[in-house]
């Protein structure tokens, strides 16, 4: 049977307490209780654009602003909406779980795209002459097309530039 008695029982208990406290203390000091998942931001709060230069950077900010605007309208996070728009199945699950129909989703995404144009204009990334027609176009487009623009903002902005750019040049010649 165990126990020859060469070590005091009290010493063993004190040793156990000290070893346990040292371990837990060291792990806590190293940040063991500090884990917080990366917070998702409130999509209704304005998110300033960080001076985008290239078309890719503008498209990036445009996408984020559009997702923010649509998510704000729907009362969900930008991240949840991005996941929902990833596949038709994810979209169906999302609309079912939030009790919203395609019309409401389309309205929210259109509003998001308009907010993205507003933000782009405010950041100086989009001229007012381009922004106006874009806003009008975006307010009319069907749901699938609106989602496609979010998914491929770079093409959308590139096309807008090539269609409306020459007209803008002409108009600018007549401006003071």
């Amino acid at each position, binding site marked *: *049977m*165990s*126990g*020859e*008695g*060469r*070590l*005091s*029982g*009290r010493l*063993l*208990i004190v*040793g*156990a*307490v000290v*070893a*346990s*406290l040292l*371990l*837990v203390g060291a*792990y*806590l000091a*190293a*940040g*063991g*209780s500090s*884990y917080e*998942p*990366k*917070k*998702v*931001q409130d999509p209704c709060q304005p998110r300033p654009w960080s001076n985008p230069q290239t078309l*890719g950077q503008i*498209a*990036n900010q*445009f*996408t*984020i602003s559009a*997702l923010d605007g649509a998510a704000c309208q729907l009362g969900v*996070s*930008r*991240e*949840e909406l*991005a*996941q929902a728009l*990833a*596949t038709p*199945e*994810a979209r169906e699950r999302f609309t079912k779980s939030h009790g919203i129909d395609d019309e409401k989703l389309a309205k929210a995404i259109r509003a998001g795209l308009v907010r993205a144009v507003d933000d782009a204009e405010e950041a100086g990334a989009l001229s007012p002459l381009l922004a106006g027609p874009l806003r009008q176009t975006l307010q009319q487009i069907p749901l699938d097309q609106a989602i496609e623009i*979010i*998914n*491929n*903002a*770079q093409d959308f902005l590139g096309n807008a530039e090539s269609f409306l750019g020459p007209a803008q040049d002409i108009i600018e010649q007549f401006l003071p």
Partner: protein
Amino acid sequence: MPARPRVAALALAVGVVLADSSIVVLALPEIYRELDTSVAGVTWVLISFNLVMALAAVPAALLARRVGPGRAAAVGLAVFAGAGLACGLADELSTLIAARCVQALGGALAVTAALELLPATVGSEQRAATVWAAAGATGAALGPALGGLLTELVSWQSIFLLQVPVALVAAVPILAVAKHEAATGVIEPELRETGRPHLWANLALAMVSAAIAAALFLLVLLLIEGWRLSPIEAALVVTVMPLAAILGSKLADLVADARSRAAAGAILVSGGLAGLAFLPKATIALTIPPQILVGLGLALVLSALTETALGGRAPQAIHGGWTISSRHAGVVIGLLILTPIFTAEINQQRHDAIDAGTAVILDSPINPLLKLDLAERVSQQLETEKGKVPIIDPAFEPKPSDPVERAEVEQLQGELQDQLDRGATHAFSTSFLLAALLGLIALFPIALSRRVDL
């Protein structure tokens, strides 16, 4: 028959049966995938065995005394082996669980009968209790590592199939005793009942066993499901615990007072579990110090409480039955309390991690088209991993050919993986803390064990 082979056979019988309580821990993720069940469902492969052991141990001890311990041990091992074969051939969770219940019935009979046979074989009840407790502790400690190795090298079924020849080998020397019993008609040994079951020692055993079972079960799930280690890698990692338990048994030899050993052991188990609850990073190395504390603690506390529960009491088989019952009831209670808690935590953390991961992708500087494509692939990957801690790597394949984009994507993958790893690790924190609390609560019955020695 010479005593040594019989002692070895009895120790092997006790070891293989009590290893069965924990041997499937590392195989659970594999069983969970192969039999297409849930985390909560697969825990019943563990719970069913421990529940039946808890309920059957004392009646099995009574039966062993009635029919003769030799015959009881031989029949018990045969039933254990037969049910092991059924477990190995099971292709449905319900069949596996039913076979596990039968296995536990046979196991309970074999283990309690072994304790009845050991005193005559080793010369004293005290020595018999030591051999019995050591065989059980060795089996329980080595079980997970052996199970992990077999799962990885062969299959989860091989764990049960290998038990068949092992149990039969253990049964051979015991058959001679059974034949002797049949020939001489010696069935019930002379009754010399002393003392009721030691309430406080058994209660403390239940609490500590709950904490230890949780430590093993949760750590294995964290390693395999959370950190995506293979069963063999996880087996190597959790081998730290039995190695520390060997050291702990040496330490136990140095201290005479069983109550102090039990208290120190319970504190170390709780300290180790609290350490696992506060892992600062998802790194294997950081699991080693807590495992050392748990291993040292389990060796100290289990042997001390078993000695206290058996000390000066007879018949040994009945009191041994109570300790088996308490230990396995503790495992069941631990799993029943903690399974729904960590299942809910895993689901919540998974949800948070997905949102956090999407935020990382959306906030990244990569090309927006690639970004949304990645978000879509990650989302689809999570679809296929529904209900599990997600594995994100496949969503990042193939990588972009452009070196700049490739570097950005790899950095993003690292950030996302870090979010998921930390989320998965954190998902186990509450359960580890609750298990630590169970270990600390055991200090109350340990403190009372001398004052009110029933």
